[in-house]
């Protein structure tokens, strides 16, 4: 039976242009820019200095606190400098710049493609390896994975949920990974089950990836602890709250509620593959699959690229039409970030580069709200976007807090669906940030 979440959501055109393109390994870049903050939480602390020589997989920066992640050298070569560079956020952040020399890997990393299904490490060792390898959530949220593997005291986990929804239009990185690395992903799931000491895992996949569903169903036929669940195509099903609701009917409580409060831990399927490589191959997170797509791209592709490769190199490899390009987006069209420069590097959270043509990159003209209520209908969190947007615009932040503005997951369904083209989410984001700061201030007093 096909499942989905019951309230809200939209279904934008899929536009999965690159879903039949095999993953291609891109050449190692001549220079890698490696930001120190590629994850949620404290930026990592650099442990190298200019003129140092590093090999692929050497530690560049040490995690700085519990919610933080290690960063490793994606290329071998010489550290040129540690400088402020513009990253995906659009702001300048500390980054390590490496000039590539050759491509030699650090000792102990298994670079063969052989499948290794035998899990030797103990749960404790798995969590430590995931932490030392700098694995973060690759779906886009970049939450450090080792934190999720350590279930807090007093909480229990009874389901591991594998997020293979890929509900963003255009993106196909997870889809291709499942088709090409299915067995590795299955081993990865078994590794996480072992680390969490949980006995069942559900892989949630949207129904527009029928080949991946069939393939994983055949692979899991004799694996009783792992099941595959097809889901009706509905954005934002890849949001973990919506995914848990769709699969198990459980509702994660409002912030600061987490999936673990309803007995679930959620991992993106790309993260599962990274964990497989870290645990079985001792390979830190130095590369990832990135979809390069959009109507202004001649050859929509899925690339396996090293962290630190510039967006420009990816776009050239996919033959992007620079005259047509009007907007470059890191991530999908619903939640991705628009880039203001092509020198920005691929980071751990880069799931795709979407190049929109000039005519599609402008917003519709803003008209009066006609109170049609569509934003209320599509909000998967049961909020009232028209109201939150107005309250934020008029700076009534206390009332916005009473109306649960911090529950917003910024999925963008409201702005997407508004027939008056109103930038609802822009205002709501502003209000949400302000309210979060107000709450933080109150905590300090």
């Amino acid at each position, binding site marked *: 039976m096909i499942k989905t979440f019951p*309230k809200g959501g939209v279904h934008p055109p899929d536009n999965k242009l690159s879903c039949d393109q095999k993953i291609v390994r891109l050449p190692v870049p001549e220079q890698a820019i490696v930001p120190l903050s590629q994850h949620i939480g404290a930026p990592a602390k650099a442990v190298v200095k200019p003129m140092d020589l590093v090999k692929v997989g050497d530690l560049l920066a040490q995690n700085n606190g519990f919610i933080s992640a290690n960063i490793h050298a994606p290329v071998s070569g010489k550290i040129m400098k540690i400088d402020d560079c513009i990253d995906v956020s*659009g702001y300048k952040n500390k980054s390590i710049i490496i000039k590539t020399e050759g491509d030699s890997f650090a000792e102990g990393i298994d670079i063969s493609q052989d499948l290794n299904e035998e899990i030797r490490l103990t749960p404790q060792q798995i969590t430590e390896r995931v932490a030392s390898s700098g694995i973060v959530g690759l779906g886009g949220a970049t939450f450090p994975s080792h934190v999720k593997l350590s279930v807090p005291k007093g909480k229990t986990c009874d389901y591991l949920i594998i997020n293979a929804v890929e509900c963003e*239009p255009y993106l196909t990185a997870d889809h291709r990974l499942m088709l090409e690395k299915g067995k590795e992903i299955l081993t990865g799931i078994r590794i996480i089950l072992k680390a969490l000491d949980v006995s069942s895992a559900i892989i949630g996949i949207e129904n527009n990836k029928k080949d991946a569903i069939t393939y994983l169903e055949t692979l899991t036929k004799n694996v009783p602890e792992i099941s595959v669940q097809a889901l009706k195509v509905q954005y934002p099903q890849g949001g973990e*709250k919506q995914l848990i*609701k769709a699969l198990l009917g459980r*509702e*994660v*409580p*409002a912030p600061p*509620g987490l999936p673990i409060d309803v007995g679930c831990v959620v991992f993106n399927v790309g993260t599962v593959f990274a964990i497989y490589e870290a645990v079985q191959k001792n390979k830190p997170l130095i590369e990832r699959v990135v979809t390069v797509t959009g109507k202004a791209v001649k050859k929509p592709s899925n690339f396996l690229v090293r962290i630190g490769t510039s967006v*420009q190199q990816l776009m050239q490899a996919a033959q992007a039409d*620079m005259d047509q*390009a009007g*907007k*470059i*987006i890191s*991530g999908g*069209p*619903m*939640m*991705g*970030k*628009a*880039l*203001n420069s*092509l*020198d920005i590097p691929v980071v751990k959270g880069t799931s795709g580069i*979407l190049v*929109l043509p000039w005519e*599609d990159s*402008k*917003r*519709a003209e803003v*008209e*009066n*709200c*006609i*109170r*049609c*209520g569509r934003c*209320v209908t599509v*909000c998967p969190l*049961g*909020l*009232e976007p*028209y109201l939150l947007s107005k309250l934020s615009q008029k700076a009534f932040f206390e009332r916005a807090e009473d109306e*649960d503005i911090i*529950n917003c997951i*910024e999925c*963008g369904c409201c*702005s*997407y*669906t*508004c*027939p*008056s*083209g109103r930038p609802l*989410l*822009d205002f709501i*984001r502003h209000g949400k940030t302000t309210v979060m700061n107000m709450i933080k201030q109150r905590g300090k007093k």
Partner: protein
Amino acid sequence: MSQKLFHVSLSPHIQTRDSIQRIMLDVIIALLPALAVALYVFGLGALQTILLAVCSAVFFEYILQKFVLRVKPTVSDLSAVVTGLLLAYNLPSNLPWWMVIVGTFVAIGIAKMSFGGIGNNPFNPALVGRVFLLLSFPVAMTTWPKPLVNRTALTDVVTSATPLSVLKEGVNGGQTVSTLSAQLPSFWDLFIGTIGGSLGEVSALALLIGFIYLLWRKVISWHIPAAIIVTITIFTGTLYLLNPAVNAHPVFHLFTGGIMLGAIYMATDMVTSPMTYKGMLIFGVCIGLLTVIIRVFGAYPEGMSFAILMMNAFVPLINKFCKPKRFGEKI
């Protein structure tokens, strides 16, 4: 290459292709079957009233925005066309031409533009226009051309009472519904619309065809019309069962007067109706109750316009108390 500038903005980077114009166009399309019936039943008078109302509504909106409010005119969003069309549908087909223009001026100028244009009006503009005319020119507004016989006449038309006023006056005069039934049209006439009344409200069939179109295009949801129709059926049905001598059959109530037009096109006006499904149901039930109370116990034979306008005033309150269930909230 990196010299080229790109668009930047916050997500989402794609939007639906829906627009106010598209929504209004759908409403206009949905109103076309009723237009055809109006032309068939009332002929030239209906054509004149509709053209006058639509053109003057667009004209007033353009003039007021351009020269009085000095904002960019929004006539291209077609909302003025809808207001004009709906107002015309609520008028007798032989209403003097200048009254039609006064009505659209009140609807557009006072009910819509003085509150800030589309989206800001608390009351349905077309209904404000209609009620203004009804209170100002009660005789002209309740003189109804006889159906089918006046197709080519613009003045000196043959008039007749509407089924609702026949019922009201008859019952007030001490007659019973069964003795009046000879003067009343059959249910079939009521359904297809060969009866007297405002020019756009007569045919339940035509209005229901438009309703199906609006539902299919997802312009409106079923909640408000269903709540109104179910409430009126239950309320008038109960009265009918209690005392069939003075109370008409529920089907008679549903297919006469402005109930279909009001329930499907006026009460569902997005700007003046609640946001949530729960709110819509409450809104619809209250409109149904008020309509029957006015029709059966009040002085007017028809109560739909008053009921909708009264409930329009409660919309902010309904929105305040009918919140959607927050995700993760325990009930």
